[in-house]
């Protein structure tokens, strides 16, 4: 059957009726909905008009009329209705009109669907849906979006001030901004978000300024909780893409822009919070700033400064107390200081783990703070010395600390942790070793387990090389005991020759122990016999070792037959040597004693002082002054007596500090040499600054090398032909194999 040709006007008339019906429906006027027949007819009309043979192929015209339909409706109805409304009412109207428009587009594009199928593709034209939406965009959106935006922002601000607003409405409006982009967010961002962010920024900037003036830091931080509320806003009506930008903006205004003013607030800022131990407020501060890049830096900085100040104050306190109260026993203040530093460490470590959630920045701040004041000298002693003395007091018998085993273990643990902050670790090792030697050799160690336990902890922290010698020392004593047992067997089996005196010898391995001066003391005959005897025994065990006798470490028990009663005197070997001289002579001059014993003046003065001018006057001195002079005369004081049967005559120890420092300096020179050679051997050619910095790094485990010392060692190595300077570049060095 031949299809009848439909003329454009005719066909359009028919379509127009359908469009009018649709409009009535949209306007809410009473109108029955489209039946499927009506729909079919409308669709077919379009179909026919497009498939007719030219010149009755009206696709182009229909395409244009499709668009014009929207334009007409918008211009005549939609725009006027919008123009007459404002603010929230305008927003509602817009939402309604937009919904309507979408419906209109949906229906009309169904009617005109055939155009979508062939015509638009053939001519590369926008699809019907797009045409429809574009009409709304170009005619409605373009005109109203600025007003809409301002209205929306005004509502947001209202909500910020605590008023209730219609969130659903805002969501719908903002959806328009999104949808109008037809897949792109550019309209949302450029026409709304940008201004919204700016307004937000201004809003919070004003708030921040006023709060910062009026509120304390903790209160301000509480108010900063509104950050969370802003984020919630996103879930209610803003597009999710705004979340991050919004957070950043608010954070910036509230926390970043005024960070300094906030944190540095005099009576309630970070410093004050630390001072007053406001743990909760500090935790909140951490939580607020931890998400901001570099936000924690100023907080960590204040933390570090605070700890440094407290630590330095403690050091100063100790310094002042020690110099003011001369009546204090020496070393008491230093002891107290170490205790207090340990407490300080515990306190602020707790802050790091709790308030600051173990963040590395705060660990670092704590470490750097401690490194500052833990390396200060107190009353002339280096911190390495003080720490070693502190350990000595815990580990020795009758030490000033009376603690339970657990408390001791805990304290030792903390002391070892403090060692990490001390740069001269090798100095500590040397002081510790010297004191350990005294404890071991004079049987002053309180508890073997504790001795081993601290060595284990030191090994864990500083490596095996740090503790190898000390461990050797402890082992030596065990071996020495075994050795002594076999010496006693030897004596029993050799009933013929006896030394005549009870002799205990402790054989030590030279490499492990600190170096001791061994003088050529002229021993009394009785002792010479003992020495020879032991030598004989030792040679039966091994011929490959050489014994060097260190008389300065020996102890003698001498019976003094005084007029009233015999008293057993516990003295050092040197003191005994002096006393025994008086077995053969009644009265001796200083020079005679000197000649007989072959000691230095310094040592002899100390010895004679301890026997004649100190608490127990075993010898009487002529003249009876408190100072030993080289013209003095000495006599056995037969009138001496004491209520005890056995007394210890102590010899005040020599100040080893200077020697320790010298020894350590020497070791450091070797260590620097070795490090330089090691580095240059592997790199072959290296620049000066790099060499120095690598050297410092390699040695940092044990000490902080002085740059000048490194230069000096380099010069020495150049003279010894290990290194040479590069000819072209005087800042480069070359390894000479």
């Amino acid at each position, binding site marked *: 059957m031949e299809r009848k040709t439909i003329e454009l006007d005719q066909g359009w008339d028919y379509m127009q009726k359908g469009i009018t019906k649709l409009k009535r429906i949209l306007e809410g006027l009473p109108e029955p909905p489209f039946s499927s027949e009506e729909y079919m007819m409308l669709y077919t009309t379009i179909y026919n008009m497009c498939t007719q043979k030219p010149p009755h192929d009206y696709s182009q015209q229909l395409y244009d009329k499709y668009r014009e339909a929207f334009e007409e409706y918008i211009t005549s109805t939609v725009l006027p209705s919008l123009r007459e409304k404002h603010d929230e009412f305008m927003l509602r109207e817009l939402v309604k009109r937009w919904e309507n428009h979408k419906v209109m587009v949906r229906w009309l594009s169904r009617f005109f669907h055939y155009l979508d199928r062939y015509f638009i593709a053939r001519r590369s034209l926008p699809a019907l849906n797009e045409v429809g939406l574009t009409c709304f965009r170009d005619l409605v959106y373009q005109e109203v979006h600025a007003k809409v935006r301002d209205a929306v922002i005004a509502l947001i601000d209202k909500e910020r001030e605590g008023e209730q607003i219609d969130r659903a409405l805002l969501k719908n409006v903002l959806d328009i901004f999104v949808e109008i982009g037809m897949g792109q967010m550019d309209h949302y961002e450029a026409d709304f978000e940008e201004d919204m962010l700016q307004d937000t920024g201004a809003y919070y900037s004003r708030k921040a300024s006023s709060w910062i003036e009026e509120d304390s830091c903790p209160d301000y931080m509480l108010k900063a909780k509104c950050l969370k509320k802003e984020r919630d806003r996103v879930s209610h009506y803003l597009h999710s893409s705004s979340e991050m930008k919004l957070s950043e903006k608010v954070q910036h205004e509230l926390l970043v822009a005024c960070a300094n003013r906030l944190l540095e607030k005099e009576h309630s800022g970070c410093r004050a919070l630390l001072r007053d131990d406001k743990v909760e407020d500090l935790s909140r501060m951490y939580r607020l700033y931890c998400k901001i890049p570099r936000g924690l830096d100023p907080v960590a900085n204040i933390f570090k400064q605070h700890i440094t100040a407290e630590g330095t104050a403690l050091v100063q306190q100790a310094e002042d107390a020690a110099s003011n109260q001369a009546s204090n026993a020496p070393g008491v203040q230093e002891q107290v200081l170490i205790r207090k530093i340990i407490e300080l460490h515990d306190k602020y470590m707790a802050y790091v783990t709790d308030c600051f959630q173990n963040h590395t920045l705060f660990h670092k701040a704590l470490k750097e703070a401690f490194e500052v004041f833990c390396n200060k000298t107190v009353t002339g002693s280096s911190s390495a010395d003080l720490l070693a003395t502190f350990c000595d007091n815990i580990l020795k018998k009758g030490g000033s600390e009376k603690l339970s085993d657990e408390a001791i273990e805990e304290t030792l643990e903390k002391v070892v942790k403090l060692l990490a902050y001390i740069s001269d670790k090798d100095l500590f090792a040397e002081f510790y070793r010297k004191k350990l030697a005294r404890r071991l050799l004079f049987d002053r160690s309180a508890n073997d387990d504790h001795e081993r336990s601290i060595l284990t902890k030191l090994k864990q922290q500083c490596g095996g090389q740090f503790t190898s010698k000390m461990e050797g020392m402890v082992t030596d004593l065990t071996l020495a005991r075994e050795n002594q047992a076999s010496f006693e067997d030897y004596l029993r089996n050799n009933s013929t020759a006896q030394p005549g005196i009870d002799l205990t010898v402790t054989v030590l391995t030279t490499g492990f122990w600190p170096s001791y001066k061994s003088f050529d003391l002229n021993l009394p005959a009785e002792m010479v016999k003992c020495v020879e005897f032991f030598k004989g025994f030792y040679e039966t065990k091994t011929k490959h070792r050489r014994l060097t006798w260190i008389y300065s470490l020996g102890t003698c028990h001498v019976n003094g037959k005084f007029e009233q009663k015999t008293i057993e005197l516990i003295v050092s070997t040197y003191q005994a040597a002096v006393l025994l001289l008086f077995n053969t002579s009644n009265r001796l001059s200083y020079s005679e004693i000197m000649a007989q014993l072959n000691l230095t003046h310094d040592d002899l003065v100390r010895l004679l002082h301890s026997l004649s001018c100190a608490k127990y006057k075993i010898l009487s001195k002529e003249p009876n002054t408190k100072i030993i002079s080289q013209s003095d005369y000495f006599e056995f004081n037969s009138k001496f007596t004491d209520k005890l049967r056995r007394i210890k005559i102590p010899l005040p120890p020599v100040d080893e500090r200077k020697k320790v420092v010298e020894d350590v300096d020497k070791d450091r020179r070797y260590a620097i040499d070795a490090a330089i050679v090691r580095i240059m051997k592997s790199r072959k050619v290296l620049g*000066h600054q790099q060499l120095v910095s690598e050297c410092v790094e390699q040695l940092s485990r044990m000490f902080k090398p002085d740059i000048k010392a490194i230069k000096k060692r380099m*010069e020495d190595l150049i003279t010894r032909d290990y290194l040479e300077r590069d000819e072209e570049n005087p800042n480069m060095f070359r390894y000479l194999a």
Partner: protein
Amino acid sequence: MLFFFPISVKVKTKGMGKIDRMFDSYANSSLGMIDPDGIEALCSDLGVDYTDVRILMLAWKLKAEKQGYFTQDEWRTGLKSLGVDSLSKLKKSLPELENEVGKPSNYEDFYSYAFRYCLTEEKQKSVDIESICELLNLVLGDQFRPQVDLLIEYLKVQSDYKVINLDQWINFLRFCKEISFSDLENYDATQAWPLILDNFVEWMREKHS
């Protein structure tokens, strides 16, 4: 028929005669070399003080190995390269010699030669402070008077170093050439300058503060 005949006869002793005679006139016959006395005589004949730097330059030109002595080989080679064979010619050549030494390509070589010339003992690597001071004065005094004066003053008062080695010596020259004097603005102790110069700069800064 002779197809090959000498085109020129290299008379080895051509011109050597005068040079050798000159040598003999100053040499110590038992040693076979010119000794310190001979050098002193040469100096007086040249009208030059024997502590004059030009004698050091001559020694450099001769590549003399041992301080205070010239061997016959050294004498011959040296005078030949100077292009002289008589006392008067030698005297006239001295200014030219100074120029030659002054050339940048030669100067550093001459400068380190001056140090090595002082190493009289076998295996000696360093020179004592006194001699270094004299040498500094001699070699660098003209060109860098202010630096040399202060450096000598410092070397005499400091006690860290009793001797100076070649590396330190070389760096004295570099110091004079590179570091602005007397403000010492561009001196950077973190660079590879020898420690003695670091200490010198510190001493100078303290002096002026």
